[in-house]
């Protein structure tokens, strides 16, 4: 007992003697949730580049839940008047933060670096508030990808499916041979990611935009939406029974190990394949999600920049913004993360086949209207409506007898109540 007490006292004393962390000039505190393999290496690359410029990087990683925990932390930090220099904020949330006056204008950097010429307008619009840049886009993810293990496909003697009907055919054969046709993690955002792809395949880009960007009730509350739910349920029936709660990269691991044949997931999954030292086109294949060839659901990661007070820190913040869009970082980062550069003027030769294909589709779909913002990743609608859709989708797919008609009604009601 006495030793226990003595330890406590000793600890209390040592705690009191600890020097307070000295604030260094030019520090950027960066809140992000890139903690999985490829993502973490991508973030580490940014850290190194900032340190090369003499700034110090204060890492503020909050893992879990696709950034939910990180958002909580960010809100409390902002409310307490002590926000980080940069935070990973996406899509329509950027505007909300800007409206509340938390964000700083980056126009001095943007003008000097000519961002308007580098970034496609569809993306730069999201980064701006009242005409000024308040956030820096980091990359462009394509969400509607199908990841395939070719060995498994060869073993069963099937080809990569290009339409939903083909997918069902292939999946039946895979299942008969004892493979899990579709690797998936049963978390709401992953359910929504698959739903996203099925909706695009069923509705096409125009009606997808009407439903998830404009919230047109004629599309949302329609037989076609019911058909989306029906097809979605069918796709999800090829997932193994204990997917509930599984992380997306664990599901990717199942494809890598050949336990499962395919996964519908954004191209961040490629980071997992790269981390396992696999080569695209040989060890694994990337194909558009069934029924969405030539279409591109985009998801853009971005850093919003908060208003700071110290001059050194503001300088560091600006350097961070500039560094993020420099070709060197864009290449290094996106190779690790699996995405494509947000700059359309980049030389893509250093990238792998999947990224090159992604870039081509990105440019082409921007022309022909096949480019749609991903609702499941917060690019299409507010976090509230997005959450409401998540609830309906995840409840639908996890209920023991899914009813597409009821789900369609619920979707309409949920979106209506949130508008």
């Amino acid at each position, binding site marked *: 007992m006495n030793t226990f007490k003595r330890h406590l006292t000793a600890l209390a004393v040592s705690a009191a003697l600890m020097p307070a962390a000295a604030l260094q000039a030019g520090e950027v505190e960066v809140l992000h949730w890139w903690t999985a393999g490829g993502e973490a290496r991508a973030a580490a690359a940014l850290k190194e580049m900032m340190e090369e410029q003499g700034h110090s990087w204060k890492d503020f990683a909050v893992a879990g*839940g696709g950034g*939910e925990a990180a*958002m*909580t932390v960010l*809100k409390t930090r*902002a*409310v307490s008047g002590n926000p980080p220099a940069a935070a990973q904020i996406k899509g329509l*949330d950027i505007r*909300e*933060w800007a409206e*509340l006056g938390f964000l700083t204008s980056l126009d001095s950097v943007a003008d000097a670096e000519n961002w308007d010429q580098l970034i496609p307008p569809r993306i730069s619009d999201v980064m701006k508030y009242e005409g000024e840049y308040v956030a820096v886009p980091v990359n462009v993810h394509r969400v509607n990808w199908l990841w395939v293990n070719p060995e498994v496909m060869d073993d069963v003697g099937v080809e990569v499916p290009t339409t939903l009907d083909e997918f069902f055919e292939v999946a039946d054969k895979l299942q008969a041979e004892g493979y899990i046709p579709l690797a998936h993690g*049963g*978390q*709401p955002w992953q359910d929504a990611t698959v739903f996203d792809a099925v909706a695009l395949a069923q509705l096409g880009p125009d009606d997808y935009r009407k439903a998830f960007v404009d919230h047109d009730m004629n599309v949302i509350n329609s037989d076609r939406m019911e058909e989306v739910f029906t097809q979605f349920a069918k796709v999800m029936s090829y997932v*193994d*029974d*204990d*997917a*509930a*709660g599984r992380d997306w990269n664990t599901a990717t691991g199942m494809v890598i190990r050949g336990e499962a044949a395919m996964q519908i997931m954004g191209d961040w999954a490629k980071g997992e394949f790269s981390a396992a030292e696999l080569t695209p086109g040989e060890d694994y294949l990337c194909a558009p999600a069934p029924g969405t060839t030539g279409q591109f659901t985009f998801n853009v990661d971005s850093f919003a920049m908060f208003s700071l007070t110290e001059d050194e820190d503001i300088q560091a913040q600006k350097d961070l913004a500039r560094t993020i869009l420099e070709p060197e970082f864009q290449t290094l980062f996106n190779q690790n993360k699996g995405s494509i550069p947000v700059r359309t003027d980049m030389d893509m030769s250093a990238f792998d086949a999947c990224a090159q294909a992604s870039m081509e589709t990105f440019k082409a779909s921007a022309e022909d209207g096949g480019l749609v913002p991903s609702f499941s990743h917060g690019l299409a609608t*507010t*976090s*509230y409506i*997005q*959450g409401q859709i998540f*609830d309906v989708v*995840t*409840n*639908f*797919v*996890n*209920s*023991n007898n899914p009813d597409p008609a009821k789900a369609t009604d*619920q979707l309409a009601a949920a979106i209506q*109540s949130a508008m």
Partner: protein
Amino acid sequence: MEHTQSRPAGVAKAPSGLMDGLQRWLPKLVVAPTFILIGIGIYGYMLWTGVLSFTNSSFLPSYDFVGLAQYAKLMESERWLVASRNLAIFGGLFIGICLLIGVVLAIFLDQRIRQEGAIRTIYLYPMALSMIVTGTVWRWILNPRLGLEKLMHDWGWSSFSFDWLVNSDFAIYTIVMAAVWQASGFVMALFLAGLRGVDSSIIRAARVDGASLPVIYWKIILPSLRPVFFSSVMVLAHIAIKSFDLVMAMTAGGPGYSTDLPAVFMYAHTFTRGQMGLGSASAMLMLGAILALLVPYLYSELREKRHD
């Protein structure tokens, strides 16, 4: 129990008026910091949350009042109904089962058991773990592909199936299992301590009268442990309300939102969905329910004691 007044009659003739005054105010001064901290940190913030629940605060607090609209929205939300029902199932089962297991183990352990100290520590240690750790371990044990089910298959019981964790109708019960595992040992300790305090002469007298041991426990000892039941319910209700961490670590509310609890609902809407008004309304209803259930209980228990 007799009240001790701040100035018992005998001390009226204290030496100096100043000292007397100081002595009179000292107790209040000593509790004042706590009173202020609690007043702001609990009641002030509760009031603030109450105010927000009548506004349409979205991303951050705003003071645009909309009356009862958020409460109406809440009542229509299917997810909220699931969350409320889950809290009733979880809270009821968790507290009930913990009390049952705690009482039984305490009585058994009070029978001059060898190695009592070691056994006690084994029952008690889960309480030392954080709910994050408990959730992580149980999620793993109950995972059909890695855990218990695989173990049984490896041992040759190939028809064994236990998929509650991933079945939306049963997942809430796996949360109850993990929570009971964590807290029942602590309840055992409370009851064991209570049993040690029971006057053994009462039991001897009852035995002389020919009462059997189970009857003595049921009729005499357990009723005398009423304060222990009170303490246990207090601690268990506290843990039940805090089991947010456990749900997040085990199922994160899934599959679907089948293991959603009001605290998870409130958290999701306030912090990730930018619906602070709705989140506040759910927090107020949650507090209201706690108030409605606990205050009468606290009141009756505390009143009871004054008549001792």
